[in-house]
């Protein structure tokens, strides 16, 4: 039963990613797909932190910023291959999350929210202000990953759009697989348990601060890799990637789709990535409609789109 939830989610994801290009009206949709996957990856991290462990963060874009700027800076300053820069960014994010998480995860609810917000703002401020290193708010070029050229010499010639669609899709499936593994593992169970009742979790021997910290670090790595992929794909990055709005966007995607489930969160990422593209027909009314959609979804599907609909499909018999 639980096994099928995991395999069903993964199979559906793989099928969607593999088959969707058959229906693309133009090459532009590869770009949209790749963005959905990048956002989906970050949001999967939010599911682990917020959906399962019950801890909110309003500063996770900071980690995306670290991942992104690692790819911009490490190849230039450290001579690192961009692929290794992704790992470096993830490592730096993990260490930072571990250091910052220890004191701030003692806080609860909104207090944790404001503390993580402060952390995110500090990171984006450094990216904005340390011009000599980051080139400031106007942004910085990111080197080419080089993988596409390598594939070409190996006989696989993909367009830029196709390449990033495929790569981000693969990474998302990998990220979802890891997260779904975690869900039914001892650690995942413990995270969900401490969300349910912290005091009970402690009495059955769970080291609550350590577990929260693990969730925080793991989700930071997800955000960081997502930031790296965005930077490498865009070949250019600005400190906006670490901004408050990006953090809020991550949480909104997760909650809208259903923060408790990986499938829901990825769906939320897809909706909020697609929506602005579809709403362009509304021109000046775009913001209005976007806000309206968010409010209506939360009123009528309050647990998020996917869990609410699943519950309705199963019926309320229980």
């Amino acid at each position: 039963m639980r096994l099928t939830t995991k395999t069903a989610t993964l199979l559906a994801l793989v099928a969607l990613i593999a088959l969707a290009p058959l229906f693309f009206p133009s090459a532009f949709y590869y770009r949209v797909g790749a963005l959905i996957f990048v956002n989906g990856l970050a949001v999967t991290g939010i599911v682990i932190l917020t959906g399962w462990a019950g801890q909110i963060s309003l500063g996770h874009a900071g980690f995306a910023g670290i991942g992104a700027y690692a790819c911009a800076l490490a190849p230039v300053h450290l001579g690192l291959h961009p692929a290794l820069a992704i790992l470096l960014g993830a490592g730096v994010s993990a260490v930072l999350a571990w250091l910052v998480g220890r004191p701030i995860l003692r806080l609860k609810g909104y207090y944790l929210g404001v503390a993580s917000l402060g952390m995110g703002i500090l990171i984006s401020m450094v990216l904005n202000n340390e011009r000599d290193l980051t080139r400031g708010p106007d942004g910085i070029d990111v080197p080419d990953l080089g993988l596409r050229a390598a594939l070409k010499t190996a006989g696989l010639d993909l367009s830029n759009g196709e390449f990033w669609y495929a790569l981000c899709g693969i990474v998302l499936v990998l990220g979802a697989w890891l997260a779904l593994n975690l869900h039914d593992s001892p650690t995942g169970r413990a995270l969900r348990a401490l969300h349910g009742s912290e005091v009970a979790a402690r009495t059955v021997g769970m080291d609550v601060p350590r577990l929260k910290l693990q969730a925080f670090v793991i989700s930071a790595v997800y955000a960081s890799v997502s930031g790296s992929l965005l930077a490498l794909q865009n070949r250019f990055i600005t400190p906006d990637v670490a901004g408050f709005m990006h953090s809020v966007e991550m949480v909104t995607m997760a909650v809208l789709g259903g923060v408790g489930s990986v499938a829901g969160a990825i769906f939320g990422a897809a909706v909020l990535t697609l929506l602005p593209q579809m709403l362009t027909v509304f021109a000046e009314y775009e913001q209005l409609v976007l806000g309206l959609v968010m409010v209506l979804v939360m009123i009528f599907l309050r647990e998020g789109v996917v869990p609410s609909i699943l519950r309705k499909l199963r019926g309320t018999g229980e």
Partner: protein
Amino acid sequence: MSELLQFLFSGVTVGAVYALVALGFTIIYNASDVVNFAQGEFVMLGGMITVFAHAAGAPLPLAALLACLGTAALGVAMNKLAIEPARGAPVVSLVIITIGASIFIRGAAQLVFDKQIHSFPAFSGDDPIRILQATILPQSLWVIAGAVAVFTGLWLFFTRTLLGRAVLATSNNRLAAQLVGINTPFVMTLSFALSAGIGALAGVLVTPITMTSYDVGLALALKGFAAAMLGGMGNPKGALVGGLVLGLLEGLTAGYISSQYKDAAAFLVILGVLFFLPQGLFGRKSTDRV
């Protein structure tokens, strides 16, 4: 010495702006445990409605009154149309609703008004008041007075009036509040009206200093939220002190250390305070009952 005084004046001016925004958060939070991220839009509306009513010929005081009442009505509408239908939803869903509402209001404002930056004349002119070689604008005094007045009003409301206690009771336990006969839907409506009205008043008072445009809400909400959390969410005293502390920190850091990292200093202090006082400076202490 005169420099220090000027930095303090600068800090108090900014701090009073933050305090006014922070105070707006307290009522809705107290009634529903929801931090209303659309609070900044209320502030924006206060300024923008006043600007456009004034431009349309209304005298400034009337325009300001219209702005406060109009925004309060909008707050009520927001509660009726967006918050009340979602009653019982998880708090995080409610917070997303307030974020959605703020995007909606901002989107509407850019259509109804425009995307330009606006201001209106200061209430008592622009001639600075000189104190020991430092200066402060009369409008800053208006903002400070406004913050203190709203604080006093809220403090009296929550401690001295039956209605204010009903608001607190509703937040503590909605069901119990209903059982003892508190009309909780009315309390929620009132909370939104008051919060929105206070937000709009903040907008009216600060616009001659900060100017306004359809998108000023977010930045103000962010600082106001931080100030409220620093002081302890839900406590008017916390909002006032939190706002002033935040402003003074920014002013003094800009003056003595680095203007580039003044916001960083403010957030570092918030992190430090929360490390020792996890509920903020004046927050209620909560213990898990098991």
